[in-house]
């Protein structure tokens, strides 16, 4: 049976609370002044907590991220106490999960490109890279496409392009990748399930 909140207030007949403190002659000046000071200095910050799952081993421990709503940045990551497997605790690597966020200076932030024979990376935009990749994929695929095999059976294989990875991305992304690869006719498909 689901009880409503309203029901209780009547039953319990809670009394006494809910009277303004000032009615009882309490000087709330200092509290008000402090609240005002915090407000003026904009020290009251909005944040949110978000649940996520650890990305190291496959135990699947739950995590709670605390995020600053203004900057959008994660400022704390801790074990999810409700999670039945980890029950709020984390291993050493999981406890260092925060070091995988943008707080880690080595994270990739730009599209990098290395031209044939190039000695170093160049920064590029998505709008430059995506059409270029699509073109390369089409050219490579079409050039080596095997419509029929040696026996003459219809196979529709793109043997010149291949896909590797990944067990480090979400399931939905895996499905998209595999769908993409199969639609392109790839058969050389593999990932870390083997390694």
């Amino acid at each position: 049976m689901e009880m409503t909140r309203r029901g209780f207030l009547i039953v319990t007949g809670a009394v006494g609370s809910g009277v303004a403190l000032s009615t009882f002659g309490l000087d709330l000046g200092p509290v008000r002044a402090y609240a005002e000071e915090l407000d003026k200095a904009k020290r009251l910050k909005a944040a949110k907590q978000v649940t996520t799952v650890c990305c190291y081993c496959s135990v699947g421990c739950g995590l709670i991220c605390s995020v600053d709503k203004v900057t959008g940045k994660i400022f704390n990551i801790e074990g999810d106490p409700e999670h039945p497997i980890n029950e709020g605790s984390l291993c050493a690597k999981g406890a260092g999960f925060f070091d995988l966020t943008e707080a880690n200076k080595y994270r990739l932030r730009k599209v990098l490109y290395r031209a044939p024979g190039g000695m170093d990376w160049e920064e590029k935009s998505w709008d430059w890279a995506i059409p270029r990749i699509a073109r390369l994929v089409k050219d490579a695929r079409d050039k080596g496409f095997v419509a029929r095999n040696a026996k003459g059976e219809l196979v529709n294989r793109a043997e010149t392009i291949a896909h590797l990875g990944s067990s480090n991305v979400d399931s939905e992304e895996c499905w998209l990748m595999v769908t993409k690869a199969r639609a392109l006719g790839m058969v050389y498909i593999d990932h870390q399930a083997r390694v």
Partner: protein
Amino acid sequence: MTDIEGASARLAREIGNVLERNPQSRNILQAFEPILQEKARLAERIVCKQIDPSAIDRSRLAGGIPVIRQTPLLLPEDPWEEIVRAVIPAIIQGFPALRAELLVLQKGIDDGTIRLSDFYRAQDGHPVLARWAAAIVVRQVAIDFLLWAAEKPVLENRRRTLQEVLSTSGWDRGYCPCCGELPSVAVIHEKIPQRWLHCSRCGHDWRFSRTLCPCCARESQREMPYFFVEGREQETAFICASCKRYLITVNHIGDLEEHDPDVLAMGMAHLDLLMQQKGFLPMTVSAWNVFD
């Protein structure tokens, strides 16, 4: 005896600690300290007719029906006179402004005009309260406040005898399994970051999911919003976008010593003010979170 003294010393120490961090709450804490101290003493001392824990229907409890809906927690035969005699001086000490009214009440109780058992015997207590107010010249709020202070030790006393039932009930609701009240304050522990809700009415603490709103049970894994004081990250108020309530929460509280969540909450009255200014309502009205 030593237990009571220990508890009293702990409470005093805790208030001292909170005041060190939140001196702006001095007036509030000092006003309530005598009442809290007296409550602690009384809860230990008074003899109430005990509820037999085995009489609590565990399956109904598991179904979300708190004890108070199964059996009354405040009885006419409870030692109200003893309690009131102890509580009145404590209130006067904390709230000198109420002195005159409370002395009138004291007199009314002494001469039998006011019998608290009447109130707890009545189906509907309101006429009784009105009658009292008419018989003696005090504000209704003074009577309310006295009742509030008097009920606390009784509820706490009964709640303790039910502790085992309550803590093994697998209670997963946002309101108190004992007295049905919504929480006034929560703590989130640091090491294993569980959230524990606190009922300021009967003093019960129970664990509750961090992704549900205790008030309207709305789940929000994607975004459970809260506010915190910059530089004082432990001082937070969790809010519910759906029911527009807030819950004062001590985030990442340590576990080296026990805490009195009521005292912690009073130290964070500034957050109550700020959240109310932002248009949020507290989950429950406590004696210290109504300002105007």
